[in-house]
């Protein structure tokens, strides 16, 4: 039984297949990169796994449980949490509040207990606040803790997106192009953090446009082109496969 398994996944928009018969398995603890040129269906794939879209055909199962067709919040509750390609954040709230708002899944106490402010809830809450601050510290956002998200720079906003996803206690983290619009150092910093997150035992599914980033961090790579999976394997080998080069650069230049 695979950890996260996609089986013949297809998503049609009208007649256009954004993702077509894609199957692969994600093992626990790995960093799986998904690459492909623009429009190859990478983001659609994440939208499908996270429940934002319902697949037209095929199934997704997580730890033996079918998750395709569930709502996004149910999928998040099982431990599959995503980030967004654009900066989707709680813009007006301060970072620490955003983190607490995203930390719902860390609580074990019920809403009634939180409403009554029982001792159990208060202790748990303090722990959650500690976790939130630790995550912020881990991602170099600690100095911004009490500023609203909207005043952060683009790079920090992307980091905050990852922090918010981490707050939801993921077992699998789906990162949708975490390094877009970043310069080399910032991208490097993200890569370091992905490694650190992975060391904590979180499986990472990384969508990336930038091959260099992937070579640094991914243990395995799946290549998509026009919604189809065309290759699957070790990232360094991938770079030399003719069909991958073709998908990336086009036939005539080869």
């Amino acid at each position, binding site marked *: 039984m695979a950890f996260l398994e996609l089986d013949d996944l297809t998503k049609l928009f009208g007649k256009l297949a954004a993702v077509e018969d894609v199957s692969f398995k994600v093992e626990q603890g790995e960093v799986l990169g998904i690459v492909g040129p623009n429009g190859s269906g990478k983001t659609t794939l994440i939208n499908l796994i996270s429940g934002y879209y319902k697949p037209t055909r095929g199934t997704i199962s997580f730890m033996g449980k079918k998750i395709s067709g569930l*709502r996004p*919040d149910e999928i998040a509750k099982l431990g599959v949490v995503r980030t967004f390609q654009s900066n989707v954040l*709680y813009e*007006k709230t301060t970072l620490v509040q955003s983190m607490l708002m995203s930390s719902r899944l860390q609580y074990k106490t019920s809403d009634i207990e939180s409403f009554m*402010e029982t001792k159990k809830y208060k202790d748990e809450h*303090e722990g959650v*606040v500690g976790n939130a*601050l630790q995550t912020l510290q881990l991602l170099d956002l600690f100095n911004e803790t009490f500023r609203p998200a909207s005043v952060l720079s683009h790079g920090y906003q992307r980091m905050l997106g990852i922090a918010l996803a981490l707050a939801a206690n993921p077992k699998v983290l789906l990162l949708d192009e975490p390094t877009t619009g970043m310069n080399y150092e910032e991208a490097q910093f993200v890569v370091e953090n992905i490694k650190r997150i992975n060391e904590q035992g979180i499986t990472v599914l990384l969508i990336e446009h930038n091959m260099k980033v992937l070579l640094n961090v991914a243990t395995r790579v799946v290549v998509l082109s026009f919604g189809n999976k065309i290759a699957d394997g070790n990232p360094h080998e991938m770079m030399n496969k003719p069909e991958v080069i073709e998908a990336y650069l086009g036939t005539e230049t080869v």
Partner: protein
Amino acid sequence: MNVWLNRFRTFDWRNTWPKVVAAVPVIIFLLIPVFTQGEIVLNMLILSGIWAVAAMGFTLILRTGQFSLGQAAFMAIGGYTSAIISVVLGWPWWFAFLLSGIVSGIVAMLIGSVVLRVGGIYFSIITLSLTEVIRIIAQQWEPVTHGSRGLITTPPPNIDLGPLHINFMANSVPFYYLTLILVAVTGLVFWQIGKTRMGGTFYAMLANQTLAEHEGIHLMKYRVIAFTLAGVFAGFAGAIYANYLTVISPLIFGLWQSIQIMMMSIVGGMSSLVAGPIIGSTLLYVLGIQLARLPIYGIAQLLYGAVVVLVLIFLPKGTGLIDLWPRIWRKIYREVEEYEIPGETRQED
């Protein structure tokens, strides 16, 4: 690390001062009947309180990202439930009063769990339709509701507590305290919701629905909770309203009342679940009453509309009157508050 953590402890002197200040108006309101038993003042306060409860419910629903024009409908359901049970069926008054909130809450839960999955403007139109449906039914269901003539309610029974004789018919003081209790209970429940985790959940839904859903918040569940709570308290408010006026007719709970509730909530400020709606409804209700005394027909409505428009134009982008409070507070403290109340942050522009 501990310095940071301190800010989230429940007891914190920074948090305590505003509470002390908030206690002052509470004590003043408790003591008002000692100073004056004038019917005009009490009447104004009772009705402001009733609308405040409904407006608090509106704000709570708004926190989940839904714009409800159905608050008056739930007031009507509560009012009619209490009137029908105590007058037509002849059951005890207090039992009828208790049922008014429960029935209204159950109706809100049933309707909400079907209707709340539609969002945005469509939800407003559905709740608008709902208000009209309830009003027309109240008007046409002659045998039970007595149509537009209205149903005359039975007064609450006298209460004898040893030396204390409470007679609801003698003056407005008992109704004043009944309203005050309702406002206080509603306020405490909503305050507590706003303060604890559920408040954060609601605010997340308002701030970014997609993100909230992807972080494990079951949108429908919390929308139904908010809608039901608002329905329960609106039902109680409607029951008090109907019994205070001694007659309930379809005219007092229509779309226009829903719109007024909405304006009270927005003018008061939706960044606060309790104080904003209370301030908004008190000010707007008192304003409306004072304007209605003007001798020219129509000028009251004109000025009422003008005042609301002016408040919305001249308050800084999307804030209500309550949002002026932190600014004043900061001036007193001469210090920039670093942590913020949801919705209060202005971008540094």
